[in-house]
């Protein structure tokens, strides 16, 4: 091979750099689902936990439009229970520990929603 002494190390370096995401992922510790602080006095959320985990932003989005634009401030959950539509006065009443509930999961997933620029975080936090 012509110029093998340059080409082969070059290929090795290239493959090393190219596969960096794969081997760096193998070397770093595995992602673990953060341990969240659950409300002590409540057993279940407004909807099943699986649904809340996946769709809580969707629910907040619809809640905002229903409350503000349609004037509908009561949420009748799938189990028939009625809740006031309010992030500050309903959600955060139970989930009063924002730092160990919202933030913990959001931080480990690198999402930074800007809810708290306007909405007042519960005082139970400080």
């Amino acid at each position, binding site marked *: 091979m012509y110029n093998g002494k340059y080409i082969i190390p070059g290929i090795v370096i290239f493959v090393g750099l190219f596969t960096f995401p794969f081997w760096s992922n193998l070397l770093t510790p595995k992602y673990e689902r953060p341990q969240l602080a659950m409300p002590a006095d409540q057993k279940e959320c407004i909807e099943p936990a699986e649904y809340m985990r996946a769709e809580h932003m969707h629910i907040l989005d619809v809640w905002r439009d229903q*409350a503000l634009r349609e*004037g509908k401030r009561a949420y*009748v*959950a799938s189990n028939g229970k009625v809740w006031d539509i309010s992030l*500050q006065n309903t959600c955060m009443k139970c989930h009063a520990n924002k730092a160990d509930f919202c933030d913990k999961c959001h931080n480990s997933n690198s999402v930074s929603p*800007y809810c708290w620029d*306007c909405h*007042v975080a*519960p005082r139970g936090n400080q």
Partner: protein
Amino acid sequence: MSTTRRQFLKIAGLAAFGLGTSSALDAAEAVAKDMPGAKYDVGGKHLAAKRWAMVIDTRKLESREDYDRIIHACHSVHNVPSIPTKQEIKWIWTDKYDRVFTDDMSQHLSPAVREKDYLLLCNHCENPPCVRVCPTKATFKRADGIVVMDYHRCIGCRFCMAGCPYGARSFNFGDPRPYLKDVNPAFPTRMRGVVEKCTFCSERLEVGLLPACVEASNGAILFGDLDDPNSPVRKALAENFSIRRKPSIGTQPGVYYIV
């Protein structure tokens, strides 16, 4: 039967199309869903009206304390900051006659009327110019006549401030939180870069409470349905001479003044 190159390409194209659309359909199915069985409803306690309106009986408001008590009631409930500069935020405030009723051409008004302070707030117009100019529909008029804002959607363009003939809107030039001494934990604050204004306490009406300023006014401010002849506002308007701000521009304000 042997396959020609033409047939092969046709089938390959169709197959690729099918594969593409099926993955697109999967993606569409993965879009967020409402919980089956969940419903939205108006709360049991909410107050309803066809057209909410306010009557301010200026004869019953005299001292500075009267105005300050009302202003404080509103601003503390809604986390309105007190910023002591031109960047002030105000939902309800006062001014003198010639700045309030600018259409009035009377040269020789009684000094008592001219020197008096008048309470000012968003007029919740029938034809709100702020709603017409808002490019994002952040400001909108509800079916019951209240003009409200969705701060999530406000981009801070301030067209509404230019559109409002009553100066009822304030812009958050900076973060309002440092100027809030006591935050009401039941109501949000605002953030830098959004416009804000009086909401006619739509959030209180929905839980069965009258607006904060009405409660704090000791009967000087009346609130009710303009379409209901038996409502307190209609009765007060039937019995007294009342005026509105800038009637000539056709916005049909929902705030009436008995002078």
